[in-house]
């Protein structure tokens, strides 16, 4: 299992602030594919990804127990 956190527009598109996803191993990019399957209306434009509170690229390996956060660009002030 991994925990996935959705922020801003991704929270609205998924209807969830967070969820647990079954995970056997794979890359961050594969997590994103899985999330796309679960929530087809999600847009990945400009989204940054953090793995265990560290910004990472899609090639990074994700293990069971990890926390993945998706952060779309947010502009307002």
């Amino acid at each position, binding site marked *: 299992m991994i925990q996935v*956190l959705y*922020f*801003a*527009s991704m*929270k*609205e598109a998924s209807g969830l*602030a*967070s969820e647990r996803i079954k995970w056997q191993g794979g890359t961050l990019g594969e997590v994103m594919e899985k999330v796309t399957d679960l929530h087809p209306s999600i*847009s990945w*434009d*400009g989204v*940054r990804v*953090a793995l265990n*509170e*560290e*910004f*990472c690229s899609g090639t990074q390996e994700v293990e069971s127990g990890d926390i993945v*956060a998706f*952060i*779309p*660009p*947010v*502009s*307002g*002030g």
Partner: protein
Amino acid sequence: MSTDRYDKQVRFGAIGKSGQKKIREAEITIVGCGALGTTVAETLTRAGAGRIHLIDFDEVEWSNLQRQQLFTEEDAEKSRLKVEAAQVRLEHINKEVDIKIWPHYTDGPFLHKVASSSDVIVDASDNFDTAYVINDVAHMLGVPWVYGSLSGSTSIQMTVVPGHNACFRCLYETLTGAKETCETAGALAPAVQITAARQTVDIFQLITGSGACGGIFKLEDIWSGEHQKIRTHGMKNATCPTCGSSPAYPSFHETGGVSVLCGRGAVHIHPPAHRKISLQEGEEMMRRMSIPYKRTGLFIQGELNGHRMLLFEQGRMLIHGVSEPEEGKRLYASIFG
């Protein structure tokens, strides 16, 4: 009289008397006088900062009052310039603080001039373009800057110390696609307060030299309670055009253009750098074209084809009742060619 005015701040160990003295001597530039700008400016004013520069070209609107804390109904009724309304209130709060106001559009050269002697630059703007400009100017000046942004109940805050942290451009080399803004997802006042509070703590830490801010991207959804402190170190790009070894500062040189204002049916035009129009020249032009106008200290207000327009120093213009950039350009060109 006001001897113990900052007592509760001085008693905080990491500030103390020496920190208070540094706050008293600090100069801070705040870009944007909306929700974040008014909140940060009020806190710094109450804290007894030395000098605060406030940059914003916009006027107070009714829809601002829900989260922009220095403004009143009267400010919205009279469409006062935000920086002017803010200055009046801030001076009632603490007349010891020197509040400098700049009703200007923030481009690179302008910000470089205003912030040249600042200890910190604060991003309180509502758009990415300005964040890139601040990022470039901060690195040119070697001054730390404090990013903040929000939408709905989501708050983001991050401090960049040039030479130490991944910069804004390292994180967002390009930014394409839909951006969530206050237009689409709204903006909750508590998300503003959290963002501004985190910005202010980092400003205090930078000024007093205690605490270790910088390099952490703080993210919180205050409605759901989800929270992250993300290290940015891994994003540092050695060839970044802003913080890399051969910086080009691409956003510094971007010339003026046309922007459509967030949810207002208004267009804002800033002419290219080589084409500066003084208020004197603007007034002359309006008189010649028989456009009804009124001149105040900071701008000229006129009416053209039923549109209220405000002309500022250096030829910047705000045209109300227009939502298409092209129409704004046409109207502008009809006066200044």
